[in-house]
């Protein structure tokens, strides 16, 4: 066990730092550009210099870097205020799925454009009747010659309105048990028959959408895995989703709330001197470092050739609630002005936004309850829930009035 960089890692870190210092975009450069344009500018610059998606093989636009080097890159990049975010789903979820399941030609065509930021991808999984019970999805694909014809509706699709491609799971056979009748594809989001409608969230944003499919045609060549193997392919995507969501904290981290507690007062003294404030902050520090080092332990396993397992679900499970609780507590520390946001707000006016965004983190990518089921079943080996839909054809599964 050694938390320090090896000499090779230290050299790599230095190289990363120097490149970032010379190339991270200035606020001047980014002025006037929207989020997508900013993200594309930075992504292209990284790609051209060989610093995009560094863990990927060189032939697909990466750098053949190790898992540890990738962490070092992430640590150093996070010290700079650089744009990003719109590529997370494509690079973090679609790309690993393509690498595992697509043909060599498809990988060579699509992965470099994901790495360079030329193309943005979205994930079309959830449906009105298939959220936590994802395999209950109903949007259907019917074979017609060399193509499939898609009809139905997806929901909660982040970034569908600006995406070039999407990964999608569809029902290709309703007459077999639900997990066996699914097939996985990728498709062009500009295909005729796709209609994207934004959904306004409680946080005020509209990052995700309803996506309607009316006789949308997708070539059979864009199928990933066999017909009926869609659930297995989807699991590749989902494991990567939880690892990706686990990383973020929406800007509400220990350091930020600690600084707030130094500035605001309780009984004329800095709040940080109050023992109840200290106790809460200590607990969050423990969670934050616990998650960080749990992640590093997974990386060590990864670099030894072991496959990261369902224990990655912990990051998202703990991180999302922690962010919610910290945002709520930070607002309390501001006392009477805790709820103020917008123009009049002081620098800590970000907490109401984080508070309103937090419930989404506990639901997206598998709710807290699903994460707990996964840990209980796949890590601890406890039995699955009783499932009245098990083993019966999808078309005969009972449904309620609300779905």
């Amino acid at each position, binding site marked *: *066990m*050694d*938390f*320090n*960089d*090896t000499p090779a*890692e230290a050299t790599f870190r230095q190289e990363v730092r120097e490149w970032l210092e010379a190339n991270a975009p200035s606020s001047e450069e980014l002025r006037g550009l929207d989020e997508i344009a900013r993200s594309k500018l930075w992504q292209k610059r990284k790609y051209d210099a060989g610093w995009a998606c560094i863990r990927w093989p060189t032939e697909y636009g990466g750098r053949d870097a190790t898992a*540890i080097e990738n*962490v070092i890159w992430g640590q150093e990049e996070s010290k700079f205020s650089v744009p990003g975010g719109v590529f997370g789903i494509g690079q973090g979820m679609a790309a690993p799925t393509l690498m595992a399941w697509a043909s060599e030609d498809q990988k060579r065509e699509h992965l470099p454009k994901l790495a360079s930021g030329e193309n943005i991808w979205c994930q079309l999984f959830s449906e009105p009747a298939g959220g936590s019970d994802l395999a209950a999805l109903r949007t259907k694909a019917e074979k017609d010659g060399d193509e499939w014809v898609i009809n139905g509706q997806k929901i909660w699709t982040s970034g569908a309105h600006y995406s070039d491609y999407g990964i999608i799971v569809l029902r290709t056979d309703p007459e077999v048990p639900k997990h066996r009748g699914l097939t996985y594809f990728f498709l062009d989001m500009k295909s005729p028959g796709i209609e994207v409608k934004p959904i306004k969230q409680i946080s005020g944003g509209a990052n995700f959408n309803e996506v309607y499919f009316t006789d949308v045609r997708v070539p059979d060549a864009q199928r990933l895995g066999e017909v009926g193997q869609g659930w297995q392919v989807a699991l590749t995507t989902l494991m990567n989703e939880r690892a990706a969501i686990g990383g973020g904290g929406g800007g509400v981290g220990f*350091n930020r709330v*600690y*600084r707030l507690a130094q500035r605001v007062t309780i009984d004329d003294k800095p709040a*940080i001197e109050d*023992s109840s404030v*200290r*106790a809460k*902050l*200590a*607990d969050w*520090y*423990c*969670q934050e*470092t*616990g*998650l*960080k*080092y*749990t992640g*590093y*332990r997974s*990386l*060590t*396993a990864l670099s*030894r050739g072991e496959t990261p397992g369902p*224990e990655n679900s*912990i990051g998202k*499970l*703990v991180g999302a609630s922690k962010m919610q609780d910290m945002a709520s507590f930070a607002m309390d520390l501001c006392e009477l002005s805790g709820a103020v946001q917008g123009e009049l707000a002081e620098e800590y006016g970000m907490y109401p936004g984080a508070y309103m965004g937090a419930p989404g983190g506990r639901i997206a990518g598998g709710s807290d*309850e699903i*994460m*707990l*089921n996964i*840990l*209980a*079943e796949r*890590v*601890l*080996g*406890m*039995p*699955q*829930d*009783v499932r009245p839909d098990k083993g019966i054809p999808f078309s005969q599964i009972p449904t309620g009035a609300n779905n």
Partner: protein
Amino acid sequence: MNFEFSDEQNQLRDQAQSFLSDNCPPEKVRKILEGDEPYDKQLWQSIAELGWLSTVIPEQYGGLGLSYYELVVIAEELGRALAPVPFSSSVYLASEAILQFGSDAQKQKWLPRLATGEAIGTFAFGEGAGRPSPTSLKTAAADQTVSGTKYPVPDGDVADVAIVVTTCDSGDGANLYLVDLSGVQQDVVSTLDPSRSHARLTFDKTPAELLGSAGSGWGMTNQLLDRAAVLFAWEQVGGSQAALEQAKAYAMERYAFGRPIAGFQAIKHKLANVYVKNTLARSNCYYGTWALDENNAELALASATARVSSTQAFYFASKENIQTHGGMGFTWEFDCQFFYRRAKLLSVNIGSESWWQDRLITAYEQSNQADAA
């Protein structure tokens, strides 16, 4: 960067686990808990023969001279087995204090005996209810003697030597003394976990040797607590893991409403939450161990982090283990009580959760991380 134990360290873990499952089954814990023996002498003897007491003691003082990575592997397994022996007092506290602060003569005199288990050591710190501070202490020293009462002192009834914290008029307000306990009044104190014995030590002009320099006893006490906290945390993590395994095993066998109760989400989610807390605590223990072995500037912060999360994890795992067992978990006959008792004992033995939460923030304030923030 490398965040796992080496193959050799994992082999040691396997050996320790198999030795303790043979030599320290729950019946042994029960025997000490219910009987008059203060600790399992046979187990103590075997542990000494395996060299565990001398893991980090340098070879020149009769030890094995290994790293703290080996010692934490043993600590976790002792915690898992709820071993009824004075290991934490003698190894994490007394041996550590002499190793860190003792003169060469003091090391020559005591470490070889502590390394073989011939002598048992302890740390005489507390003086009744409340959080100790240099001004709250009453035990005092004069003319190479100490006078006062220390209680509860873990393993104080069986210890041969104690590190005693006394007041001091100068410096940081405290001194550490090395005291041979022969001739000292050692009265047994009953606690909620009789599988680990405790005593009240009454010193009356008892001959004592200063440990470390005068007027720096409070600083040394805190350094010692920081070091010991990592080792205690591993015992706590070992206990948490064992409590989780016991709860799961019972839930898999116990049927209600026509199926194992392990199939109900109320139980699945409960035990998944135990697993989450255990995992975070374990990862923080890795962090603490690294800082302990390197004795680096992050030790105070890393040890408090390991300590707080392990204390919380063990308490949670032990109470939810009883809950999972239902009525049977509340019976004397079942072993669930051992974990619940030990969890609370370990959580107060070197200071409470809230004390360590406070220490964590203090350590953060003094660390580089706060400057960088």
